[in-house]
């Protein structure tokens, strides 16, 4: 039997991250194509409660570590390595997020297997796996062959649909006791972001502003549009860095991940870090003065124009329609 595929499930404070489901979905397809079993592993405190959600996997390993609310990367790598040997899993999928940063690299070193970063697609081919990764912010793609389907792949968020990883199937759970090394880094506490007035992850419509808004005063224009649409204003990192919007309104890799029905991006170029945070929005409309802005490659509708003109005009048109 071929080596198995192992998903390192990502979780924080009692909730599974969306990327876990993405990896499950992609992992299932890959495992089926390889004719291998699909396993998942949860490591940390109180993770047993999360196991039932991972039913898409053939087996879910639970490694309870009550002392480790946020287990350090090296320690997780060690535990996963142990599991790889025990469960005969050759290919491990790890989340390409801030939280899981460092685990994959450390694991590759421990296990002596290749580590491939920025993975977007994995295809079975001739008993091995070809991993397509994005480099230089997505401008260049690379194909790497893992000859005997052995390696660690760091999966880039948003590469696959999260829904494909969800399943009602009853999970087969096995609890393991794996000895781990003493952590060299101690987790002390969480630092919450300042309470924002609005939770942008729960909005149906988001009006996003980027550098192109130019001045803080112009944000009013975006707020007007948000008001008529019954939504909220959010922004890309540069706008938050300037202090024009609070951190809780930041969309992107280091900010919130949102999936509204409508995402209108004004003056946002579409850097990958921002894209990561909103790529699964249902309808994406972008307005930018630069016709070559990357965001136009991914949006559904685009306008090459001046947001200072379009925002007020749009508000008017919508008001007219609402009567």
């Amino acid at each position, binding site marked *: 039997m071929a080596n198995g595929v192992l998903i390192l499930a990502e979780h924080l404070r009692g909730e599974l991250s969306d990327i876990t489901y993405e990896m499950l979905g992609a992992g299932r397809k890959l495992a089926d194509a390889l004719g291998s079993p699909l396993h998942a592993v949860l490591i940390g405190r109180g993770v047993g409660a999360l196991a039932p959600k991972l039913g898409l996997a053939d087996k879910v390993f639970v490694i309870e570590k009550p002392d480790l609310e946020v287990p350090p990367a090296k320690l997780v790598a060690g535990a996963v390595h142990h599991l790889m040997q025990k469960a005969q899993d050759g290919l491990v999928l790890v989340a390409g997020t801030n939280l899981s940063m460092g685990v994959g690299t450390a694991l590759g070193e421990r296990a002596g297997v290749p580590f491939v970063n920025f993975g977007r697609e994995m295809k079975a081919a001739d008993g091995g796996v070809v991993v397509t990764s994005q480099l230089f912010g997505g401008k260049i793609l690379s194909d790497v062959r893992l000859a005997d389907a052995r390696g660690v792949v760091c999966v880039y968020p948003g590469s696959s649909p999260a829904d494909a990883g969800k399943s009602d199937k009853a999970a087969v759970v096995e609890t393991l006791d794996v000895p781990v090394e003493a952590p060299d880094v101690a987790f002390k506490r969480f630092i919450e972001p300042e309470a924002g007035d609005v939770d942008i992850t729960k909005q149906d419509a988001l009006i996003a502003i980027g550098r192109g808004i130019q001045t*803080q005063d112009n944000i009013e224009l975006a707020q007007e549009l948000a008001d008529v649409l019954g939504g909220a204003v959010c922004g890309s990192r540069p706008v938050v860095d300037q202090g024009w919007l609070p951190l809780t309104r930041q969309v992107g890799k280091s900010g919130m991940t949102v999936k509204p029905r409508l995402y209108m991006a004004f003056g946002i170029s579409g850097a990958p870090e921002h894209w990561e945070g909103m790529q699964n929005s249902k309808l994406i409309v972008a307005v930018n*003065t630069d*016709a070559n802005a990357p965001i136009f490659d991914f949006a559904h509708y685009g306008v*090459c124009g001046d947001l*200072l003109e379009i925002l*007020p005009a749009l508000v008017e048109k919508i008001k007219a329609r609402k009567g």
Partner: protein
Amino acid sequence: MIHDPVAVSMLGMPGLAVLWVLTVASFGAFGWRAWRLVGLVRQGRPEDRFDQPARRLLHVAKHVFLQPRIFGERAIGLPHLLIFWGFCVYVVCFNWGLVRGLFPLLPIPYPDEVAPVAFFLEGFAVLVLAGLVTAAVRRTFFAPPHLHLSADANAILAWIGVLMLSSLFGGTFRIVAEGAGASPWTPVGSRLAPAFAGLAPGTAGGLVQGMWWVHTLGVLSFLAYLPFSKHLHLLASPFNVYFSNLRPLGDLTIAGASEESAAGSARWEELTWKQLLGGLSCAECGRCDRACPAAAAGFPLLPQQVIQRLKKHMIETGLAAAKAAAPAAPAAAAGLVAATAPAATAVAEAAPAKTGDGNGGARPALIGEVIPETEIWACTTCMACMERCAVWNEQVPLVVQFRRHLVSEGQVEKNVQDMLANLTRYGNSFGKSDRMRAKWTQPLGVKPKDARKEPVEYLWFVGDYASYDPRLEEITRMTAGIFQAAGLDFGLLYEGERNAGNDVRRVGEEGLFEMLREKNLQVLDKARFQTVVTTDPHTYNALKNEYRHDGESLRVVHYTEVLDRLLAEGRLPLRKRLSGRVTYHDPCYLGRYNGVYDAPRRLLTGLGLEVVEMPRSKNRSFCCGAGGGRIWMEDVPGIKERPAESRVREAAALPGVTTLVVSCPKDIAMFRDAVKTTGTEGTLAVRDLAELVWDALQA
């Protein structure tokens, strides 16, 4: 017979002795203070303003003795001129009278005993009084904003009034005492004398002496007070005007500067002596503040305050340090040492680093405490202040010198840092690849010549904004189209062009400016051309005034000048005449800085348009607010009305005018945004001259 005024007794002492004592005291006090102030000025860094003496003297003749700039505002021009001339006459006569008073044995009369002189004295007394009354009324009821209404100024007006009245009445009483009757040499006195006809000759004679003493004491005390008041401008400003900047306005190079000047000035001793002299020359009139667009917008900047605070700071800290250094180095304290390193070090030793002064207290930081950084960054370098300053102060180079220091310390706001990093790396402020600089040419049917490879008559230096801003590319293409339609022999530098560095220099990054200039000159040196033509006035200014190619200045023209010439020569194949009323905004760097006002206007009327002037036009044009790097900077919170908004409203208020015509790419950006934010979208269109010419070329 009127006795010699010094013959009287005062408080039991012979008048002569009293006069001597007071004269010595007054001149001494004046001299001491003036000497100390000169000593402070000499501590400044070197600057060569000693060239072309003949030209400088002519400059003084015009601006000190004829004072055209004072006439730039309502009602005050003539009064001030009269007060000034009256002062000149009275200074001569006073000294004459003083010498005669101090040396009674000299066989010369008092000035008012000489009939023709008495005529001038009387005449000027009346004119000066009229001037004083006008000034007082203006100051009290019609004070223009930013005119410093100080007790000092009011005291001076009163003082001079007393001097004039004492002279006038002295003459009147003389007529009464001498019983001479009316005289054509003293028409006013002759008319006043009958009112005092009842006085006994002896009393009248006594009053004449009394008026003489009032006048003399008045002047002596005025003299002693002078170097402590704003009236120091009497003495300092003629020198300030003499030492004016004769180089082109648009050149920020300091002639004969020490090397450290490029790093800016954090302390007053690090400014040049000319900059320090400027503080003493300021008459606190407020013309600069009234002209300043930043001040009008509600920014914290007031040019007059920058000058005044610098002056006060210099005097406070400079004199305090000198006092403390006195026991150790009396020569340095008296400012007798030449104003180079030795004096500076002596002061530095008494005032260690940035915090100590001789008194042991902390010396306030010139930049940051005396002059807050927000003020230094608020300046758009438009030079409206310098255009109006009657004593020819140089506020803009001062601000740039402070900025150089802030940049050298890395204390620049993030936006500006990013811009400077982009300029360093890519040669443009947009952060786009230098290879994309000529991308705007792609849609053109015929690509312009590459001036790097073949000789051209006109080398078109396009500039950042015209090349990279997506909203402006179309206008740049139109300009190319117009050149081509006119058969102009022109070429571009394509990717070889870099930002000319004008705004980089004005933001204070001198090192980056030099690097950009080096790189541009390397490319220019290899190209063969006769004239450079630019789209952007900022580029125009730097290339024309701050670049030297083969040891000479470049020949640089603005595209409006080229189009104007082409039109005059009949080389523009116009297909239709335009019509309508338009107004034209003079860009600061084209107009005020470089004197190009007429070519764009001729061009507009040549197209068939009627040009209506805004109230603030030509050299009084009101800056759009983008200059000096401000287009890269954050708005300061709490501004009342942005300069561009004010300008757009000014244009929209002109009856029948539907178009605001500009000739600078940054103006397009600023005014189009302002039209949106002021809600004048339906009423005013903002168009570049090139767009209008292009229009006229189409059937």
